[in-house]
């Protein structure tokens, strides 16, 4: 066995320890499953989304903005349409596509995520998870709402609560821009529904029949009136004029009462309800638009202020950028002419002429001098 000295062994051990740290760190970065035990205890949860956008394995799971875990797996799964799902599709698309009905299967994404924050408390019955995006262009992540509970009925921390694993958590509908888009869509659909409802309510078969009856009665009345005028005589006035007239008025009154009753009982309440719904939708839409407009105005104001404040700096930056581009072109020329400058560098100074101030030349009535020229062909 070789006879190692102490001053050889100690540095060797340091090197090995450092290498081990690097290896472990590399496995950590690479999310090697076998090293999961290093991350401590985790609670596996699942949820299901119709669409996960840019959500990826490793994306954070946050509660109130604080990271409490990460997405560990995404996979396709089948799920049956519930009544609420069918209703949502109807509201989104205006009508139901073929095959969409309660109980029909569809493909969705099952998202598995792990919670690692031991201090987190969760109420599975009311907990929800939503898909949010970091800024406008950032990646999507999961925003976990841990649920609510009554005072004194606080759930235990997740690792002590004995939750099932995996723990299913309800997915919450999107928010932010998605909500705005959905609100706009719903408002438009409500207006559509209102017009079609009004159409259907006013021009129902019954109403059309009533109108027909009314018109027939009016026609009869007109005929009676014509007859009355034709046979008008003093003797038979009661028999030929008053009675038919009364009969005609009775019939007209009855028809009007029937129509009025139908309109008051069915059509008007329905129209009123539809208008209320549309009004609520439009108010929500208007509020969202106002918020959006305020945000945009603030951003634009800030941008304008920033641009105004930094105009001299921008001009200076542009000047420097032009200088940098010239230096880059000069460097390219040097490398093209002599690639060895890449290895040995170049001590050649930049000899670009400055901008000439020609006011003096002009004031004395002289011609300006000839400027620098590209003399690539003339050699050094």
């Amino acid at each position, binding site marked *: 066995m070789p006879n190692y000295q102490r001053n050889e062994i100690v540095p060797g051990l340091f090197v090995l320890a450092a290498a081990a740290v690097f290896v472990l760190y590399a496995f950590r970065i690479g999310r090697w499953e076998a090293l999961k035990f290093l991350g401590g205890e985790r609670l596996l949860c699942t949820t299901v989304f119709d669409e996960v956008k840019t959500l990826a394995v490793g994306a954070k799971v946050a509660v109130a903005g604080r990271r409490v875990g990460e997405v560990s797996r995404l996979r396709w799964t089948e799920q049956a349409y519930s009544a609420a799902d069918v209703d949502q599709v109807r509201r989104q698309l205006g009508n139901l596509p073929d095959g969409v009905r309660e109980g029909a299967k569809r493909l969705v994404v099952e998202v598995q995520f792990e919670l690692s924050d031991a201090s987190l408390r969760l109420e599975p019955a009311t907990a929800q998870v939503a898909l949010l995006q970091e800024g406008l262009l950032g990646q999507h992540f999961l925003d976990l709402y841990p649920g609510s509970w009554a005072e004194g009925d606080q759930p235990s921390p997740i690792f002590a609560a004995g939750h099932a694993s995996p723990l299913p958590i309800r997915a919450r509908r999107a928010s932010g821009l998605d909500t705005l888009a959905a609100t706009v869509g719903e408002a438009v659909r409500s207006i559509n529904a209102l017009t079609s409802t009004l159409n259907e309510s006013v021009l129902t078969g019954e109403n059309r029949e009533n109108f027909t009856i009314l018109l027939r009665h009016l026609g009869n009345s007109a005929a009676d009136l014509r007859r009355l005028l034709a046979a008008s005589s003093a003797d038979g006035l009661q028999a030929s004029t008053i009675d038919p007239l009364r009969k005609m008025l009775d019939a007209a009154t009855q028809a009007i009462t029937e129509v009025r009753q139908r309109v008051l009982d069915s059509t008007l309440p329905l129209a009123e309800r539809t208008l209320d719904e549309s009004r609520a939708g439009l108010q929500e839409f208007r509020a969202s638009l106002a918020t959006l407009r305020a945000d945009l105005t603030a951003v634009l104001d800030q941008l304008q202020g920033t641009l105004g404040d930094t105009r*001299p700096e921008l*001009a*200076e930056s542009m*000047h420097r950028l032009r200088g940098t581009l010239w230096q880059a072109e*000069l460097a390219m*020329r*040097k*490398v*093209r*002419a*002599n*690639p060895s400058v890449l290895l040995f560098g*170049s001590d*050649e100074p930049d*000899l*670009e*002429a*400055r*901008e*000439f*101030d*020609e*006011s*003096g030349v*002009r004031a*004395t*009535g*002289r*011609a*300006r*001098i*000839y*400027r*620098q*020229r*590209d*003399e*690539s*062909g*003339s*050699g*050094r």
Partner: protein
Amino acid sequence: MAPAAERRHRGARVGLAALLAGLAACGTGRGVTPIHTPFNRGVYHHSRGELAAAIAAYRDALAEDPGDVRARFNLAAAHDQQGQELGEAGDAEAARAAFGFAEREYRRVLQDQPGNVRAEVNLAALEHERGEVAAARTRLEAAIAANDELALPRTALALRLLAAGETDAARGQLEAALQREPTDLGANLLLGRLHAEQGRVEAARDAYRAALRSEPDDPGALLGLACVEAAADRAGEAVALVDRVLLHDGGNLEAHLLAADLHEHQGALEDAVFHCWRARDLDRRRPARRDYQARLRELYARLLAAPPRAEGR
């Protein structure tokens, strides 16, 4: 060999050939940077006001190619400028010698390239400054006749006519120059100055704006327009134009002087003091030209007597 593999091999061969050709092209590169010729080095020093170095570099260029008209003209112009600076510094003897060198080189330019309009114009300027006014005018008129389409000799003649007080003739020459070259900077600037001196504000403004259309950042045009705006009681516009000059060239003496005047006129005494200090620092070569100390003393006295400025200005 399978067709796909054959195509791949052919592609690799073409790539290798291109790489070798590129390396060969690099190896046979002509010159390191095209700017490093004696002529370009001379222009570099000339642009920085290093006239002795510029003259040496132009001489190197002429040693390589004695027929290089541009190098010879620039050499003459460098001597010419040296003469002007020596004259301003009070060394009349040295100035005369420098002007002599310049004239000799201008004449050599005309020998190598008869009718070179720049050399004719500068020779005329030397003659005019020596007091040979008629000779200068004759030379410029001959240059105009030989180069009717150029604005430069007409502009130079207009300047001489203005010096002689013949403003109408000068204006005629400038308008003729601008008919031939409507974007000529020198002609537009001189016309702007002429209009401004004669109180034609709109015409002066138009001329300076025409100059700025061809050279948007030209300090002469910007400062000329600023003077016009200041004379028309539009101090805000004038200050903005001067700021534009200083944004491009923070060391522009004339701009600092004008800015000091404008700010003083507007009552912004701190700004006036700042620009006066900058002008004094920049004008160290000719401190006797303007009495900065007296002006600064007066500005400080007014500043101390003035009430404090409101916040937010």
